[in-house]
Structures are given as structure tokens and as C-alpha cells.
């Protein structure tokens, strides 16, 4: 059997993915915002907005969207299944949680004495079950298995629970064969070592968010160190020009430098767009920006067609293909 990828409509052949946007958000809901008196969640309206954004992605040549928001940030599996069916875009949904501030009290202050936060092993069980038995439609049923395991560490330094989440996610990836993606703004290499220490091969790990703040010397060195270790680097803010963020020309230069250093097989690109945001600011970027704007920029910087194709299609295909556990 050829390699399979877990989508919300079930496993498909990895070769069917096409161009993959590896780190996007479909419906993004800050935990708790679903209960807010001043926030309306109109799923018919949300469907229309997301469907039109997915169609634009497809029209630009996109094949697969990976929703990287995890299991507790608005994930709505019946909605994503219907969207995938009606737009023809493959949707890969993720399990995992983090950083700590996004967690519910069930994990942080359990009804035990003392209220000890969950250790890595329990997060591993929770996430691995989602990646093998199916993702939860809470208190109703499991749906299709998750295609990616994600976590994020707090931006001002990892908390002990952030580390438990990361280690648990790495263990779940080891056991399920589904890849791990994490972001660790405060100390990326430390976090990578933590994940590797759980026995997860480096080529099952994506380090994301490196291009959020800049592409200066430190970021370049970190990216190079991650790739050298054998893990993937996701530049997942393509097209974003927030204050203090790098330009896409800076990002293209970073990609070229990594390719020149022999790391072309370890690069992933994504817009980090948010289809519909509830409880936080809209992110004004489109899923297809890598195809429409950034790929031409890479070509202009001198990356050939094969090099671009590898980054947009082959690398995510290899990452998302579930490994035999």
C-alpha cells in the first residue's frame, strides 16, 4: 500500500495532495469565545466564507489545506468534512493543544488533591488516540484520524505544562506515525531537543513560526540548525507584513540560502491565514498567497521549477504521509 495521509474525509494517497498549505487555520476560536455573549458563531455564514477562500486556493493551484489549530481552538469536523466535499480541497485537521494559556482547567487543575497538571504521558494518550482512533467531536463521536499533531510553547518562555504538551505530542507522533509540528518562539533548539529525546525521528518534526519576527542572523542560524538536525522548517507567515515582521523578499532570500546549504528537502511554506477568526483579530491574508505571490518571488530569486515544486508538493507529502508505527 502506498503512503497514506489522514484527511477529514479519511485517508488518501499521499500523491493526491498536490500543493499543500501546511499551516493554516480554517475556523479559529479562542477557547471560551464560543460562550461569549457578544460573539455569534453562524455556521452557515462561516461555511460560505471558508468555501470561497478554499475555492480561491484551489483556483490558484492549491490542493490541500492543513488546519493547524489543534483540537481546542475552534476545530469543527462536520463543517470541515462538508467544506472538503463541496470545494474538492483536501483538508487535513490536527490534534494537539498549546500553549498552556489555551488549555482548559481539566488539564491544569484537575479535581485531584493536589491539582497536579497533566504530565506528558497523559497528553500523549489523548493526542495519539486522536491520530489513530479519530478526532473527537466533543461528547458526540470520533471522526477521522488527525493528520498532524501540533503544539505551541508560550512566547515568553516555555512553562512546565508547555513542555509536557510538547513531549506528549512527540510521544503521540512516535506512536501514531503522524508528524509533529510545533512552534517555540523563546528557545527553538531546546524544544527540538526535547521532542527528539522522546524517540521521534527528526524527519517527523516541523518547526514552525520561525519567520514571524524576522529573518535576521539569529533566525537564519536557528533555521539552519533545525534543518541540519534533519527537521523541517516551516516559514508560515508568507505574505504577512505586520509591524516588525520581515518582507517576503527577506523570506525568499532565507529560502534560497537554505536551499544553497543543501536543505531544500526540509523547507515548508504557508500563509498562516485564518479563514474565520472568533475572539481574536482577523488575519488579513489568503491561503493561496504562496502560489500567487511567493512562488514567483522564489523564481525571481533564482529557484528553479523543480526546487519550487519540491517545497510546495514533495516536502509536505513526505511529512504528512503516516509512517508505519
Amino acid at each position, binding site marked *: 500500500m502506498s503512503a497514506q495521509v489522514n484527511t477529514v474525509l479519511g485517508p488518501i494517497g499521499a500523491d493526491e495532495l498536490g500543493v499543500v498549505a501546511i499551516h493554516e487555520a480554517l475556523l479559529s476560536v*479562542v*477557547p*471560551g*469565545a464560543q*460562550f*461569549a*455573549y*457578544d460573539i455569534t458563531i453562524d455556521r452557515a455564514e462561516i461555511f460560505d466564507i471558508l468555501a470561497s477562500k478554499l475555492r480561491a486556493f484551489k483556483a490558484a493551484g492549491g490542493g490541500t489545506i492543513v488546519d493547524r489549530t489543534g*483540537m*481546542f481552538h475552534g476545530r469543527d469536523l462536520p463543517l470541515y468534512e462538508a467544506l472538503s466535499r463541496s470545494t474538492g480541497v483536501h483538508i487535513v485537521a490536527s490534534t494537539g493543544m498549546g500553549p498552556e*494559556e*489555551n*488549555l*482548559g*482547567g*481539566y*488539564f*491544569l*487543575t*484537575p*479535581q*485531584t*488533591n*493536589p*491539582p497536579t497538571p497533566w504530565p506528558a504521558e497523559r497528553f500523549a494518550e*489523548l493526542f495519539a*488516540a486522536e491520530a489513530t482512533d479519530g478526532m*473527537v467531536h*466533543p*461528547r458526540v463521536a*470520533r471522526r477521522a484520524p488527525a493528520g498532524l499533531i501540533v503544539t505551541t510553547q508560550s512566547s515568553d518562555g516555555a512553562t512546565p505544562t508547555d513542555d509536557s504538551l510538547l513531549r506528549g505530542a512527540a510521544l503521540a507522533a512516535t506512536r501514531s506515525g503522524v508528524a509533529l509540528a510545533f512552534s517555540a518562539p523563546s528557545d527553538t533548539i531546546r524544544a527540538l531537543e526535547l521532542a527528539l529525546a522522546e524517540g521521534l525521528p527528526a524527519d517527523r518534526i516541523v518547526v514552525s513560526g520561525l519567520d514571524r519576527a524576522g529573518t535576521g542572523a539569529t533566525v537564519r542560524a536557528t533555521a539552519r540548525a533545525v534543518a541540519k538536525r534533519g527537521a523541517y522548517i516551516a516559514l508560515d507567515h508568507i505574505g504577512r507584513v505586520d509591524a516588525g515582521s520581515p518582507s517576503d523578499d527577506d523570506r525568499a532570500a532565507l529560502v534560497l540560502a537554505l536551499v544553497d546549504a543543501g536543505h531544500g528537502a526540509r523547507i515548508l511554506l504557508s500563509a498562516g491565514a485564518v479563514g474565520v477568526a472568533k*475572539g481574536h483579530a482577523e488575519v488579513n491574508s489568503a491561503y493561496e498567497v504562496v502560489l500567487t505571490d511567493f512562488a514567483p518571488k522564489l523564481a525571481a530569486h533564482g529557484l528553479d521549477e523543480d526546487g519550487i515544486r519540491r517545497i510546495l508538493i514533495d516536502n509536505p507529502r513526505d511529512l504528512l504521509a503516516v509512517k508505519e508505527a
Partner: protein
Amino acid sequence: MTRVNTVLGPIAAQQLGFTSIHEHIGYGMPGSELDTRWWKTPEQRYEETIPKLRAFAEHGGQTFVDATGICNGRDIDYYQSIAEKTGVNIIAATGFVGGDTALKHFAEASVEYLTDQFVHELTVGIGTSGGKAGIIKVGVSRGFKLTALDLRIYRAAARASLATGAPIITHLAVDAATAIEALQDEGLPLTRVLFGHADDGVSQGKVDEEGIVSAGGRIGFDTFGYDLELPDPPFWGRHRDERFQHLMRYLRSGQADKVLVAADANCSPLGWPGVKGHTINYLFEQLIPDLRQDGVDDATIDQLFIGNVADFFTTSTPDTLNSEGK
């Protein structure tokens, strides 16, 4: 006229009748819905819940105050169906069991925003259910000290209580001086506040009952039935007779008007195993017989479960408060 919001609409305080002031149809910590180990089919949830409420009604129970806060599996449509089919009045809560149970959106919110959330749920409705909250829940996070977030919730609750007339029930009565200071600073008369779980096992020695009572607050004997005599008691359990004698001290000293009594049982717990053998009907099956055996008369029993509750819901309205304030 005092209107009390049940999930099926307002009733007069005089219609509340025998009321348990602190119960749960089903409680789960936020996030527990993600863990399949606790999942129950709807069939199972009704099967676990309806017979307990039927027995409650047959014993003479009329009103069930559900103390489940926002983010804890509070489920108004479900409560509406149960209330309608059993005839038991269910009063839902706005607010939070404590800062520990407020998810990020609310954990980062201001006192003003939290106030607006509570007032909306008390006056407009909860989510799309059409049901309104009738009481406000606040509480102390784990560790027996009010956190900054707990205190924002207390202040918002005080403002919402002043704006709507709804009373406040707390999870835990520890660190009362801090709570009283914040509530009084907001201008709330403490008769509007039931300091809950003053009777539980882990709080003993940590509750300033005199301070609460002298400030006008009410004392919650609302974990009746979490007895260490149970086969598998929870960590907040307490010896049955110790709790009973604690309550009797109030009754014997003529302070029956200061206390409210409940069982804090889950009909069908959502994110924890619950405590086997403990239901709301402990009130009828154990506590009331114990009270009678100790010579407590029916008038006092009625006062605890009927008169005090009606008083708690009616002691003030926003209008009288405003005129008194000026």
C-alpha cells in the same frame, strides 16, 4: 414582585418552594469534553438524571439551582428539556466556578466585560437557548486564595447582582475577608451572597464564619452528603456527624436564618467519575430525618429550604438599592 429566572422562564419567588441552592445536573472541568473516557450517550445521561429528579419531586422538592458555571458543561437546552419533563424548576447560573474554570477568552477579560457577560445571561439569555440565568456563580481557585482573576469575577458578579437583583453563590468560603472587601467595595450588600462549601472537609479551619455572618453574608452548608463514611469519598469529604453538628450549632444558636443547605451532587457527572452513592436526595433520605431525630421542628426545616431561599432571592432589588445608595 420578585421574578426568579428558571430555564423555562421567570417564576415568583413564592413559587420556588423546597429548593436545593447548590446542585449540578452535570459538571465537568473545561476541556473534559475532549476526553472520551467520560463520554456518555444521551440515553445514559437521561437515565442517570431523570430518576433522581423524579425522586426529588416525589419527596417534595420543587426547585433545583444548578451551580454549573460558564465553560463547565453548562447546557441550557438540556436543562430546559429536563425541567419541562420532570416539573422540577431548574435555575441556571451565570459566572464561573472559579478563575480555574474560565477559559482564555474570559481569563483575559476585564471586569467590565465580565459584567456585561453576566448581565446579558441574566437579562437577555444564555447562548441561543432563550433561557436566562437566575443566579451568579463565583469561586476561589485551587489553593485557597483568591487569584486576581477570581477577584475580577467577584467584582463583575457584584456589579451584575446590583444591576439585576440576582444573588451570588460562591464555590468555597475560604479567603472570605478578601472576597468581602471586594464585594463591599462594589457596594453590594452581603445578604446577596451565599458563601458556599463552608461545611466541606478541606475548608475546616480556613473559613471565617464570624466575619461572613457579621458582614451580613450567608453560610453555605451545601456539600451535605459528601461523607467520609461513603465507600469512596472525595478529598473534600467530611465525617457525617461532624458536618451535621456544625449545622446544628447554627440552628441551636438561633442563626437558622444565616444558612442555606444543599448537597452539591451531580445527577450525571460530565468530566469526572462523580461520587458513588451521593445524590441530591440525601437531603430527604438522610439529612431531614437526622434533623427531625435531633428535635428540629418542621418550621425550621421549611425555613432552611423554603423561607431562607425565598429571602435570598428577594432581599433587595436594584431600585431599592439605588435609592438607598443615594
